[in-house]
Each structure stands twice: as structure tokens, then as C-alpha cells.
């Protein structure tokens, strides 16, 4: 089992169908297969242990991904937005490597020893310049296909290892081969180093769907590409959808994307007002919420279009509530909620989410496998499952506030504060407290020209939640620190409350 199987099948079945559109360039599945094999020859000649990619989306990305799989070398896309120091450290960790990159990203870097640099345009040009002999990929399902560095919001980035069998199990378990129609096209706006950027390439290839690449996301270009390329499917992270919604509201017009029939989202918590507004603005689109992690080869739970529609239209609070869930596990994985002592919890009880299945890698280069003896992976996400199997997330286990032995999830307090008419954004973090060890701190972003005092917000929470949930410290900021994928940098926020200890 090897990732290239998906590409070989697609190229065999519909060689002329367009696989990748980027700028004015269109590559068919036949072209992509040839380029991947040619790219594998480049990689073999370079005699390296890794193929690194440090770049935005371009045709070189899917070519390099499949070429690395043909060459039997792990593919390592990295976040080009990291600092010089961070990037040089990551590059040091993958030497000897062939690095495919572009001038603006490369310019400030002092490239460590053992890194052979090839410019993206050159890699693409050479890979498309000749037709290599047919080759077969190494049939080693247990080999590492992809190594992804975690975003490192809590420390040094960890190298998550995804094997061919993990990724292919995900694809085979969730995608029907050749299910895309000739005219189908997906807009890929997530960066190549995000697990969703990787699964988009694999799933689209297996489905035989055309991939249209958007190298740098902004709402106007996203909408424009949807119209021009007649996009039928799109995946966005919550911040992207939020910007698209804002943009449409400012324009005052409708989305005017008649071809777009499916929007999937994931990669972070989606605010309820954003998804409801998006459903109003894109009445012709089916919405799907996908919950997954890098370590699980992408999606493990789905909230599908029917649940979105019934949640949106229903007056029943139990049905409405489902819009805030991540749906049910995909058929090929199992979910368990466990308490602090490792005991399995029942419906409606909060604990840590554990997941099991072939697609679950749960492994880091440094620490090895994190699966327990039963094959379960601790996600470090907190949540619960309701009576009928819908999964609700409550934030990262590491973000839980432990106040005098009581566990408090920031999410429920954030939801309540966001409902306050003066609050536009909020993040709740653990702050030091002499009496309780930790207490609740809230960083508030107020709406323009709106006011809400600390006492007023405390009273607002007190009327809606238990008294232990009332923030002892409330601070105000013009905006919250987010990383480029829309994750709040809680580590940074916590530092703004450290004075509370003294």
C-alpha cells in the first residue's frame, strides 16, 4: 500500500481529466502521474532522506507529494510563516533533504548543512520536461509517507509521523473512487503544511476531482475563483469562512456562486453566528463540519449537510444544539470518552476524547507511538458524546483550568461571554491564583464604540454559569493573538496575566 496507488488508479481511469489548475496551468491526471515519476528520479538522484517543501500551494506541491512516495522518502511540508530561527531549526531536523522552495521564503534563511535547495519552478519544470519509464512504488505500507511538524503552540514543534497505511486507510474509508463528476472542482485554500491540505490532494485524486489552488487566501479572491473556475467543492478553516461572510456582508450582495454545492470546514472551533450566516449567504451549498487531527490522518468525525439544515431550521433546542457539534465518527473509526482515571464515560459526561482506527497514526518521531495497548490514541481534546452519538468538543485538555481541583473548560465561558452584546471576541485562560492554584482569566475584545465593565461581565457570567466559572481577572485588548490557521495563542495570552502571582 502506497499513496501513489490513488494517483495510478486516477491516471489509469481518466488520464485526460484535469487534476490541478493553478494560475493558467492545467495538469491532467496523466501529466501528474508522469511528473510524479519524473520527480521521483530527481529525488533519487539527490540521494536524500527527506523531501521538504517550504512554499505556498503550486503544482509542485502535489507533484512533490507523490514523487516522494514513489522515491520511498518521507514528504515534509513546512510552515513558511515561521520565523527564520524556527525554520532553520526544522530544516536542521530533516537533513539530508531536498528542499523545494521559492525565493521570498528562502532569501532570509541560512540553510543548514545537508539541505539541497531546488527552486519550485525548476522542480516543476524538470518534472514536466520528460516522460520517465513506468515505475512501481515501494510496497511498504508501514513506511513513513508524511512527516508534519505540529504548530507548536505549546512548545517545540513535534514531528508527527503518518504512514502510507494510515493515510490510505483514511482515503479508502471516506472517499468513493472516481466519485467526482467531470465538471467537479475543489478550491484548495488551506496551506500545503496543514493536514487538510494533504488530505485534500489525496481525497481529490482518489475521487478524480480537479484541484484548483489558491496560494494566498483572501475572501475576495476566494469568491472570484469560485465564480471563474466554477468551483463545486471547497474546504475552509473557520477564520476563512468568517472573512468570507464579513466580505459578503460589506459588499451587500449575494455570493453569486451557482456551481458551489458543498462547503466543508474544520481545523478549529466554528462560531455559531458565522456558520448560521454562511448558510444564509450560500443557500445552494451543503455544509459539512469535519473534525480531525494531524495525528489521525485528518477527519474522524463528520456533521453532514442534513444535520446542518435541520439544526438551522429546527425550533427544538436539542436539534439546534447539533450545529455546535462535530457530528458522528466516520464508519472506520471508534470514539471513546475517558475520565481522569482512564475509565470509559457514558453519554453526556465530559472527558478526554480517545480514538481508534487504521487511519490513526498517533505517533511522533521523538516519542514513538502514543497508542495504548488497545490501540486507542489520546487526542488531548476534551469533549462528550450525547445519547445519540453526536460528539461535542470542549477545547484542548491542556487549556483546561484546574480551580481548586475542579476542571473548567474555557469553551463554555467563552460562549457565554460572546453572547454579551458588547463583546466581539474573547479567550479564556487559566491565570495564577493564590487561593485556588488557578482561576479563570478572560481577555475581551469589545465591539466598536461598545462598553462593558469588568463587574458587568462578571455578573453576566454569574447569572448563566456556576460561580466557579466567573472570571476573577478580566482584561481588554484590541485583538487576540491568532496563528495563521485561526488558533488562539493561549500561551501568549497567559503571559499577560502573570503579574497576578506577585
Amino acid at each position, binding site marked *: *500500500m502506497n499513496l501513489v*496507488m490513488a494517483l*495510478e*488508479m486516477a491516471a*489509469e*481511469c481518466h488520464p485526460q481529466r484535469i487534476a490541478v489548475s493553478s494560475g493558467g496551468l492545467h495538469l491532467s491526471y496523466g501529466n501528474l502521474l508522469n511528473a510524479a515519476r519524473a520527480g521521483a528520479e530527481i529525488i533519487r538522484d539527490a540521494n536524500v532522506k527527506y523531501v521538504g517543501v517550504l512554499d505556498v500551494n503550486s503544482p509542485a506541491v502535489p507533484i512533490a507529494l507523490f514523487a516522494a512516495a514513489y522515491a520511498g522518502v518521507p514528504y515534509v511540508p513546512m510552515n513558511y510563516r515561521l520565523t527564520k530561527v524556527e525554520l532553520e531549526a526544522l530544516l536542521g531536523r530533516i537533513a539530508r533533504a531536498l528542499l523545494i522552495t521559492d525565493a521570498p521564503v528562502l532569501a532570509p534563511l541560512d540553510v543548514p548543512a545537508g539541505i539541497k535547495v531546488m527552486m519550485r519552478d525548476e522542480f516543476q519544470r524538470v518534472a514536466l520536461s520528460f516522460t520517465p519509464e513506468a515505475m*512501481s512504488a515501494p*510496497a511498504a*505500507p508501514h513506511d513513513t509517507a508524511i512527516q508534519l511538524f505540529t504548530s507548536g503552540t505549546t512548545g517545540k514543534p513535534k514531528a508527527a509521523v503518518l504512514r*502510507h*497505511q494510515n493515510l490510505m486507510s483514511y482515503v*479508502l474509508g*471516506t*472517499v*468513493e*473512487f*472516481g*466519485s467526482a463528476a467531470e465538471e467537479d472542482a*475543489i478550491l484548495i485554500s488551506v496551506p500545503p503544511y496543514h493536514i*487538510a491540505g494533504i*488530505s*485534500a490532494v489525496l*481525497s481529490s485524486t482518489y*475521487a478524480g476531482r480537479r484541484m484548483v489552488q489558491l496560494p494566498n487566501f483572501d475572501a475576495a479572491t476566494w469568491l472570484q475563483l469560485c465564480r471563474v473556475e466554477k468551483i463545486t*467543492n471547497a*474546504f475552509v478553516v473557520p477564520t476563512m469562512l468568517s472573512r468570507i461572510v464579513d466580505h459578503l456582508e460589506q459588499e451587500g450582495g449575494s455570493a453569486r456562486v451557482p456551481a458551489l454545492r*458543498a462547503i*466543508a470546514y*474544520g481545523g478549529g472551533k466554528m462560531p455559531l453566528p458565522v456558520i448560521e450566516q454562511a448558510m444564509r449567504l450560500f443557500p445552494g451549498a*451543503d455544509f*459539512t463540519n*469535519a473534525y480531525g487531527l494531524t495525528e489521525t490522518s*485528518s*477527519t474522524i468525525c*463528520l456533521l*453532514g*449537510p442534513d444535520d446542518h439544515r435541520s439544526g438551522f431550521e429546527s425550533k427544538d433546542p436539542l436539534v439546534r444544539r447539533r450545529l455546535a457539534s462535530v457530528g458522528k465518527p*466516520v*464508519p472506520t473509526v471508534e470514539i471513546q470518552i475517558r475520565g481522569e482515571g482512564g475509565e470509559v464515560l457514558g453519554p453526556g459526561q465530559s472527558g478526554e476524547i480517545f480514538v481508534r482506527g487504521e487511519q490513526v497514526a498517533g505517533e511522533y518521531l521523538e516519542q514513538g507511538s502514543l497508542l495504548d495497548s488497545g490501540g486507542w490514541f489520546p487526542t488531548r481534546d476534551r469533549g462528550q458524546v450525547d445519547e445519540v452519538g453526536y460528539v461535542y468538543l470542549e477545547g484542548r485538555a491542556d487549556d483546561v483550568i484546574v480551580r481548586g481541583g475542579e476542571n473548567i473548560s474555557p469553551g463554555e465561558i467563552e460562549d457565554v461571554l460572546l453572547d454579551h452584546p458588547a463583546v466581539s471576541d474573547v479567550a479564556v485562560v487559566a491565570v495564577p491564583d493564590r487561593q485556588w492554584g488557578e482561576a479563570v482569566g478572560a481577555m475581551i475584545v469589545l465591539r466598536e464604540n461598545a462598553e462593558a465593565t469588568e463587574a458587568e461581565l462578571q455578573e453576566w457570567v454569574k447569572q448563566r454559569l456556576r460561580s466557579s466559572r466567573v472570571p476573577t481577572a478580566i482584561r481588554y485588548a484590541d485583538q487576540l493573538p491568532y496563528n495563521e490557521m485561526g488558533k488562539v495563542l493561549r500561551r501568549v495570552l497567559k503571559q499577560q496575566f502573570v503579574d497576578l502571582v506577585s
Partner: protein
Amino acid sequence: MKLLKAGTRAKCAVCDTEVMVVRTVPTEVLLTCGGVEMIGMDGAKAPGSHAAAGAGQGALVGKRYMNAADAVELLCTKGGKGELAINGESLSVKQTKPLPSSD
């Protein structure tokens, strides 16, 4: 008879059919296409034809094939004329409920 391993691939010695093993049993089985035992991907094609009785409707690319007990499952990675069978039992196409596209 061969011990199959999940993830390994096999091809028909006669027609174009190729498969990948998705799930299997821990015992040796006879995997055939059109009545002829399937061979490794590096094996040499044999001149000849499928056994008349086994040459049914053929294997379709992208379809999953399973036995009645649902213990063995194959993915057809390249379509061909022969009918897939395990220990003489014809395999049938696995019906799956399509999921909404999530990426």
C-alpha cells in the same frame, strides 16, 4: 494457496485485473481471477485464458469486493475481465454509503 497480507497487491496472470488486499484472514487462501490463481505484482503473465466457468462479469476499478462472511476484502486497483474469488467462492461488490466530502 497463499497467506495474504493487508496492503499487498496482486495481479491476474491472464487479464488486466489488479487488486489490493484491504482485509484478510490469518490462513492461506486461494485467490483467483477468472478461475486462475492471482500472482505477485512482479510475477510473469502466463499465456492462456480464464477458466470458462469463472469468467463472469469482471472486476471494476475502485470497487471493493468481499466474501459472504465479510472476512476478506479486496480493492480492485485495475479493472479486468475475470471474476474474483476466494477458495472458489465468488466475491461480491461491497455496498458503501457515500459520505459527504470533507476535504
